[in-house]
């Protein structure tokens, strides 16, 4: 069992209080909350809530087991009233397992749209993909109501799921007064693909491919977190060089995302030349990815036990390329910050207040731009991060400007990390194998968390072995960064004008596919 995890079973009566203690007004962070159907192992339906202790590299995982049935429904005590960050997790659990969060202020369906009939709970282990499919009515419209704002001069603007630009599907319902957004209701989960259930039918190697395809531009972060969980559940560790390679590629992924996002924000203000420069810079990085790993999205590198591609083979040459990118990056940022027409649009737009970010469990850029100092690389150092000296950054104001500048700060930091790893590789201080024994089997007693700080924030995985003669997992729970950040959007958009929505949206750059899974 992984060393920084404490699993503790609690009684349902104590659950809310214990969670509230660990959450501690937001100082302890709710990293993940999920259910599992453990009827096969005699534990019945279980709920797990994962908190990290403030200031310590320690996770405490509270478990409810053998949930009880009340009047024909299986229930568990909702913790949303004391841990607001749990609100979506609990609705997700209700949809996927049919477990009712008692006392949830808004227990409406979240993941499953109207075309899923009531009473079908996809993640229960006694229903197959085929059975669920046969129960669906693909033509059925989702008629569940949107939040309605009443009053003089309020008009509703529906947008999506098919949008005007090349972006992912989601439906937004703006209630606006003139140009000003009073309330935004977002209906997501259009790209829900049933990935959690698919994991259960795959062996541990195959699972990597699926993890890579949860969210396109976080492919590496997701597969690294998944492998981390599998390795810890199997009680193996990876060679030092593999850890350094994963660290290197995580930073490369952060870099191409941050630069691409900074460029995309220019599209949000109609600043075409800034957008074009950002897009060219990103394209350069995508090609570097391809050159180093054979994939523009860094796919096919991770496996449980290490990595398949030795990207630190030619450190001198890679270093030259990274130096070239650094120079371009610097001139790009200098160019943008000198463009006052662009920068002025960013200031005071889409402000996310710190207390909202804290109580709703924001992560990544969204959290750090609103003054929350939370970075997995620092809070729970793993891979090669423990051996590196690097800065983490925060900004106070929580507006689009803060999020853009934070990305620039972090991109500079990623470049520094890339260089420092390359220098070490050049000096032959990272020698060794790139993969340990592959993980083929994990027993039922093997369970662990895996995590990384991805480009959009923390990504968590929970893996438990014991399925199909230990060759497959009983449960895999991925949690993308965007799942935590989507609920922030209505708060950040409130009071802004509708035409600024694309800009604000781009400043968060949330993943639909990752969150919908």
């Amino acid at each position, binding site marked *: 069992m992984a060393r920084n995890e404490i699993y503790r079973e609690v009684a349902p009566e104590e659950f809310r209080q214990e969670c509230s203690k660990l959450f501690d007004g937001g100082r302890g962070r709710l990293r993940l909350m999920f259910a599992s159907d453990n009827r096969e192992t005699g534990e019945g339906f279980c709920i797990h809530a994962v908190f990290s202790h403030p200031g310590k590299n320690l996770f405490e995982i509270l478990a409810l087991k053998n949930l009880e049935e009340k009047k024909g429904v299986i229930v568990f005590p909702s913790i949303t009233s004391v841990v607001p960050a749990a609100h979506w997790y609990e609705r997700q659990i209700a949809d996927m397992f049919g477990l009712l969060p008692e006392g949830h202020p808004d227990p409406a369906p979240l993941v499953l749209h109207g075309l899923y009939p009531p009473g079908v709970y996809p993640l229960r282990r006694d229903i197959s993909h085929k059975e669920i499919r046969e129960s669906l009515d693909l033509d059925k419209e989702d008629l569940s109501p949107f939040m309605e704002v009443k009053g003089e001069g309020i008009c509703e603007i529906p947008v999506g799921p*098919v949008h005007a630009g090349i972006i992912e599907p989601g439906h937004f319902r703006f209630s606006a007064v003139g140009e000003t957004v009073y309330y935004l209701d977002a209906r997501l989960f259009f790209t829900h693909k049933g990935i959690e259930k698919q994991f259960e039918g795959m062996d541990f190697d195959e699972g990597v491919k699926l993890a890579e395809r949860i969210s396109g531009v976080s492919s590496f972060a997701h597969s690294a977190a998944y492998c981390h969980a599998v390795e810890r559940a199997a009680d193996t560790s990876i060679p030092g060089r593999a850890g350094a390679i994963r660290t290197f590629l995580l930073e490369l992924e952060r870099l191409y995302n941050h630069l691409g996002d900074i460029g995309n924000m220019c599209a949000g203000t109609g600043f075409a*030349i800034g957008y074009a420069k950002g897009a060219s810079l*990103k394209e350069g990085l995508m090609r570097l990815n391809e050159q180093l790993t054979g994939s523009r999205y860094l796919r096919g590198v991770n496996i449980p036990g290490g990595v398949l591609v030795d990207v630190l083979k030619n450190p001198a040459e890679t270093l030259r390329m990274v130096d070239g990118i650094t120079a371009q990056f610097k001139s790009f940022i200098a160019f943008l910050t000198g463009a006052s027409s662009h920068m002025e649009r960013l200031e005071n737009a889409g402000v996310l207040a710190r207390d909202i970010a804290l109580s709703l469990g924001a992560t990544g850029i969204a959290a750090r731009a609103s003054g929350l100092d939370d970075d997995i690389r620092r809070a729970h150092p793993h891979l090669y991060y423990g051996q590196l000296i690097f800065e983490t950054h925060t900004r106070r104001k929580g507006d689009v400007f803060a999020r853009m500048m934070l990305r620039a700060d972090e991109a500079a930091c990623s470049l520094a990390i890339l260089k420092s790893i390359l220098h070490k590789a050049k000096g032959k201080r990272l020698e060794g194998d790139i993969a340990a024994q592959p993980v083929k089997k994990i027993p039922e007693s093997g369970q662990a968390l895996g995590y990384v700080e991805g480009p959009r924030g923390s990504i968590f995985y929970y893996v438990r072995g014991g399925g199909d003669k230990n060759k497959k997992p009983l449960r895999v729970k991925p949690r993308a960064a965007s799942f935590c950040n989507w609920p922030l959007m209505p708060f950040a958009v409130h009071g802004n004008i509708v035409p600024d929505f694309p800009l604000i949206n781009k400043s968060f750059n949330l993943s639909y596919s990752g969150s919908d899974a």
Partner: protein
Amino acid sequence: MLGRILYNIIGRKQALPEDELNARADAGGILLETGPLAEKTGRVFRRSVRIRQVDAGSCNACEWECIALTNPVYDIQRFGMDFVASPRHADILLVTGPVSAAMANALKKTYNATPGPKLVIACGDCAKDGGIYKGSYAVTDGVGNIVPVDAFIPGCPPTPARIAAGIMKIVRASSKIK
């Protein structure tokens, strides 16, 4: 407009010439004969093709590659192609993703909103038959199960060069059919 001009100026410097684009594309796997393309007689797109991209539940990597098509390196506008905001303005639907159950209806509606004759291109391995998501309860195993598909561009994700070359190949093939 000014933005567009400036964009073109920086764009031109870096843009890949068409033959290099084709060389990078490895367009071999692009399938044309999968759909009712041959029936679309008399359609000549010439050098003005309008594309509506529809994400039907992809992992989003395919979209990023479509977005890259408009960056200064690929700059597909110089070949007379462009992405449009509405299906009503489109000649081509470029669909990505395995078609998640929740997107099936929206995809159908988008298809019906597109004026004929229209081409539907399934872009990416999962758009063909579900790819990695095949068999999952929440997907419908490919665009072809929801709307008629004319062509398929393989890859997971296909590179921007391949998508660009693929669209050109498909457009040329359809323009020859009288």
